[in-house]
């Protein structure tokens, strides 16, 4: 099962929300908490760096394509990086380990396509949640999102799509 690291990055390259989780479609239950991220401590500490280094590629893609979802844009030693960018220049980055479904490295292409689609769905709805947060007059662009409600909804999205 894959682990995920999701981060929303503001216009000044500042993280405004982070979340670590793993796929809730867990095969082995009882052993560990469903949804808890399985990144090793050494990977955990470099995750922010990996997503930060993907920003260069995102900013390049930002002006060469006019789609919101940028798809898979980078990889780093078995970690895949997908990104999404909104019109207001807010970046959504998702890092995940690819050796999730089966240990045989590359899984069937149809499954991969499914994954891409569910990540796209996840990004789209995450963006919607962010817009709802932005509509709050007490929130201003680039503030960290500390609302427990936002966190709860985001985790529900993670459970639903990934």
């Amino acid at each position, binding site marked *: 099962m894959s682990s995920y690291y999701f981060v929303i990055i503001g216009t000044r390259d500042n993280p405004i929300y982070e979340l*670590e989780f793993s796929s809730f479609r867990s095969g082995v239950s009882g052993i560990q*908490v469903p949804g808890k991220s399985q990144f090793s401590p050494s990977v955990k500490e470099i995750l922010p760096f990996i997503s930060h280094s993907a920003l260069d590629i995102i900013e390049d893609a930002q002006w060469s394509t006019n789609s919101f979802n940028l798809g898979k844009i980078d990889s780093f030693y078995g970690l895949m990086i997908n990104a999404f960018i909104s019109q207001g220049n807010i970046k959504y980055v998702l890092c995940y380990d690819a050796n999730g479904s089966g240990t045989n490295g590359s899984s069937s292409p149809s499954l991969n396509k499914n994954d891409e689609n569910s990540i796209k769905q996840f990004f789209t709805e995450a963006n919607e949640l*962010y817009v709802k*947060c*932005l509509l709050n007059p*007490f929130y201003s662009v680039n503030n960290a999102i*500390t609302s427990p409600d936002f966190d*709860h909804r985001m985790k529900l999205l993670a459970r639903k799509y990934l």
Partner: protein
Amino acid sequence: MSNDNIIYPSVHSFSNLSLSDSSRTGFGYNPYKGPSSNAITPETSNILINKKTVSLTPTSFDSIYDRNILKKVPEISLSSFSFLFCEIVNWTRNNSKGIQDLEQRLNTLGYQIGQRFLELVKTRERIKYSKREIKILEILQFIHGAFWKSIFGKTANELEKSQDIENEYMIIDDIPLVSKFISVPKDYGNLSCSAFTAGIIEGALDSACFPATVTAHSVPKEGLPLRTVFLIKFDESLYTRENLRFN
């Protein structure tokens, strides 16, 4: 601070968060702690798996996050908006030092509305067709069309390019909604309360990475005494990008 403190969703509470704060419910991101602050615990995992309803904040049951923002909202009454805007101008005027300052303040008020509306309108539009605006002309057409329509209920009247200056564009509105009932006294010179609308445009353009300065000028025409020109002056750096990318 004790753990009993709920983290409320406001800027104020953000400044109160510190490294030692942890959420009582297991939900809520703390930027000083990073992802470990909202890591999934056995309790929160249980709540998520079983889709239990939880009351995290006083507003949890009628939270903005449960509303549908994609639906078109009913229009609000023009008279109530005009009263509100009248009070806004009055309040701003009392705080300001002069006409220029007054316009600047109105601009600032509009700015954050622009930032928000840009994202909102784009999110709504995405259901029909998904396209991010990356060229100057496209973003201007978007502002002039869909964006204007969702705020004022109609598109702006004209979109023109300045003949003399390369980086200047004009959006022209014959009957601007915000200043429909405003007549400017003589001693206020060329004050235009549409500076508020100019701020909205500026906020939207800036956050879409098209840095610009927008000013409002009243240019009456025969039969159209309220006709307003929004002068958009783009940053030079923008043309460097545009040339690199699209030429």
